[in-house]
């Protein structure tokens, strides 16, 4: 699925402007790294791309469809079925095993538990955690936890994968492993947008958006 932002402005209460007139067109299957210092609006852009938040003004189109008039339920449906998120802080549930954490990722698709678990196992195998299915997050290393989070995002085979500093909490070796998994998924045709402040990681992407103070200052293509 393609994602397109047109003149997007995002202001938070208290007069903070996180995004100023951002326009960007990410075609279906595109792989984009977003680079920039802290506070440059990277995460805000990602949440708007993922329809978690609505822009103050401007248009967001997903697969060519306008999302500004969509209801909360319609956007939730889009996220449930088509968008996968990966966060820097993993956001795994400590009380659940790896399989159940991944299966919960498909909770709101309405798929029955048996099917969700089957897909979850499959996804964990894909990220190389087939031997950790019943482990709790506490029993996993940082890299493994992030791979569980990635499995949760990809198990439903989303058309768009959005990752916010997925390697930020990891050492370089685990980080490299996580990136390999993400690139591999990207080659399956999913649109991938990844936030990083690591120029080296960004260098592995065919297209890099450089952000500063809520604006895209450079759209760099390899």
């Amino acid at each position: 699925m393609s994602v397109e932002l047109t003149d997007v402005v995002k202001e938070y209460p208290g007069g903070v402007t996180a995004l100023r007139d951002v326009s960007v067109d990410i075609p279906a299957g595109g792989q984009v790294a977003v680079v920039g210092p802290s506070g440059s609006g990277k995460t805000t852009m990602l949440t708007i791309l993922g329809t978690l938040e609505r822009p103050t003004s401007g248009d967001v189109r997903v697969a060519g469809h306008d999302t500004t008039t969509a209801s909360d339920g319609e956007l939730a449906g889009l996220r449930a079925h088509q968008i996968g998120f990966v966060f820097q802080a993993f956001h795994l549930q400590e009380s659940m095993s790896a399989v159940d954490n991944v299966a919960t990722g498909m909770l709101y698709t309405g798929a029955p538990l048996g099917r969700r678990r089957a897909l979850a196992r499959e996804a964990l195998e894909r990220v190389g955690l087939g031997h950790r299915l019943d482990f709790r997050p506490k029993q996993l290393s940082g890299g493994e936890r992030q791979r569980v989070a990635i499995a949760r995002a990809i198990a439903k085979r989303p058309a768009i994968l959005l990752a916010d500093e997925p390697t930020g909490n990891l050492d370089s070796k685990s980080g490299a492993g996580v990136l390999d998994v993400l690139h591999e998924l990207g080659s399956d045709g999913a649109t991938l947008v990844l936030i990083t402040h690591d120029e080296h990681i960004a260098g592995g992407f065919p297209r890099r958006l450089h952000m500063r103070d809520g604006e895209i200052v450079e759209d760099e293509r390899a």
Partner: protein
Amino acid sequence: MTDVAIEGSSGRRTRRSSSLRDADVGRARLPPRELLGVALQGLRTRKLRAALSALGIAIGIGAMVAVVGVSSSAQANLIAEIDALGTNLLTVSPGTDFLGNSAVLAPSSVPMIAHMLNVKSDAPIYQLTNANVYRTPFVPAEQTGGIGVDAASENLPKVLGAGLSSGHFLSAVGQRYPEVVLGSQAAATLQINQVGGHVLVYIGNRYFNVIGILKPVKLDSSLDSVVFISLPVAERLFQQLPEPSEIYVRSGQNNVTSVANLLPATANPQDPSGVSVNRPSDVLEARAAAKGQFTTLLLGLGAVALLVGAIGIANIMVISVLERRGEIGLRRALGATRGHISLQFLAESALLAAIGGVFGLLIGAGATEVYAATRHEPFVVPTYALIAAPCAGFLIGALAGLYPAAKAARLSPTEALRA
């Protein structure tokens, strides 16, 4: 998925894409079973906290169930006692005649009633208006102690189902002699607690030998403050007219109403309206029912405990929402609508309180059981309480969860994820 090109009239938008509504991206769904699972999961991860906040509801509901249970048990006990005494006792007494004057029952009414079909036994009493009881002749005449003197037939205790705590009742053998039987209250007033060894009381101007003391008469407590002498003695010594002041009638168990309907005309064929017929067990049952009404004050205390419990749950849920911002944000990212989030917290809160309600029911039933066992009363918890207790918990929980649920749904997912 093709873009639709429309010539924009506004000028700013020259190309408008189709709305997401038309796109087949799939719907966000949370079937009830999954909702229950999510709510249970939420409670399971915070067991101690869930248990403590459910305890508040359990105590409130337990108190209310106990109040209802204890009063129902007491009531059931009373009704069982009344049933043991028999509900087929009827009393016939003179009412007021057509002109509003006090009527009198004719002496003939006693044999007339005794001959009625379905009357199993009957016992008349005759109230003496000119006699008082004293312990000795030295007691001032005006200190009557409020004790009445009645003449009675020897089968009175049997008809009333009354027992004697000491001695025996009047008998055909001794009915010519000045013998007296004391009602329980009369005996207490006269400070006589057992017979034997020539216990005497002074009635009119002679001593009477006390031959028996009645136990309290449950079906007619007015007889407790009366002493009984035989009718022949009453006629000889006090010129008592044989006009009964009250006739106690035992009917067949299944003919109570028909007998009651026939009694006035049988007792006084000339003027049935001057005859009053009562069923003492009715009065007692009404009294039992009134006693069974749970004390409003105690119920109020239960309600206060419940309110405190509800506030506790609301409080815990608000804290929970704040603590679980990360989870809320994640669920929104995973495709939960605002409605799903608020439903989740509402379900957790309602489930928590419903569990509290079930435990409250157990606590209340247990308290009732202990109370009933110590007082040898039947154990009764009304059926409605079995349904009402968990339902009340559920409703209270849902109400308590409204605000936290709305708060959770309003949370910005981005902010929640940053937390």
